[in-house]
């Protein structure tokens, strides 16, 4: 596959504190922070319904968590299905892969409509949180 290089974040996004990243194919190979994330913190983000919001739509290997979603594939095995870079792009801005996806853009502030004032100009997760979640999802092997 021919690798395509795209500059991730636009100038206005950079001004609002979104770090630039490089998309290669369907992945962002490099850490947004330049450092690996912490999978234990990632697990806490994923299962927190106010922070990660993941279990609203996804289910996962959490028998103790009630009320998991069925709108999206299970997180179980995500680390087998996807590489670290693929997971990162799917977190950052999954619409780049599939424009019709319902996966929210966790690290994008551009191209959104009527964002509530308290969230305007802010990403759903910070770069550090994205890296923690990516590090955690990598551990979800089949």
């Amino acid at each position: 596959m021919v690798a395509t290089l795209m500059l991730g974040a636009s100038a206005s996004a950079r001004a609002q504190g979104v770090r630039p990243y490089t998309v290669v194919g369907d992945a962002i190979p490099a850490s947004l922070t330049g450092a690996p994330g912490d999978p234990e913190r990632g697990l806490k983000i994923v299962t927190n319904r106010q922070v990660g919001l993941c279990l609203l739509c996804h289910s996962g290997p959490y028998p103790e968590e009630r009320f998991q979603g069925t709108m999206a594939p299970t997180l179980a095995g995500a680390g087998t299905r996807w590489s670290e870079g693929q997971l990162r792009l799917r977190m950052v801005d999954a619409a780049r892969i599939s424009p019709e996806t319902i996966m929210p853009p966790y690290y994008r502030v551009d191209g959104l409509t009527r964002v509530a004032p308290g969230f305007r100009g802010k990403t759903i997760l910070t770069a550090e949180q994205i890296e923690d979640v990516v590090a955690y999802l990598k551990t979800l092997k089949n």
Partner: protein
Amino acid sequence: MEKRLRLVAPALAIVLAAIASLAFAEIPLSQRRSGYEQMSREVKAMQDDDTSNPASLSVLDGEALWTRREGSAQKSCADCHHDAETSMRGVSARYPAFDAAKRRPLDIEQRINLCRTEKQQATPLPFESRDLLALTAYLGKQSRGMPIAVISDDDTKPFIEAGRQIYARRQGQLNLSCQNCHDDNAGQKLAGVELPQGHPTGYPLYRLEWQSLGSLQRRLRNCLFGMRAEPYAYGADEYVDLELFLMWRARGMTVETPAVRP
């Protein structure tokens, strides 16, 4: 290569059109379901029995308001409209309805307030106020069991279309549209809750989560809040257009007002 492209292009166009129509698929009329059908037996029973339906008190309040003289004109609703059980039968089922003077559709709340300001010379009732909810519940009750029958004609079509566009538009930090959940994923679970198709068959309704009666606009605000989107102001044209589209989408379904929902 060029020849192959010429062969592939129409096929590709068909595939793309199929994908586009899938993405914007509306629920077939025969497959529409009221949120009522997804409720537990206990909550259904609560709605079905007027003596246990917590909205019944508001309906009684509305009945009392119907005959109360208001404003500097000292007129009651009943002074012009007489017995609501006959004059208001089927009215709510047609709202939002086009108002020739305003050149746009009004919802039932706005229609009541227009009567208040113009006929009763009274101040409009605030959205979500006890009295406005009571009156809309009382009026809605007069259409209970009747089919939703908003009018789609040259006057209303542009507003139905405007509502449809709001329904389909991605909004908020989570970048979701109404359609993403209530058409494309209806029946799936959002956390533990089965997503309804979102037909406004029972408003105003008593929501156990609210512990009160509330309007459709209040419910729409809840969803916008969840999408991390900026809500519209109560009474905004966008809400009324969306209400009109949703009622048109639910055309023919049975009015349940005052409904009960979890």
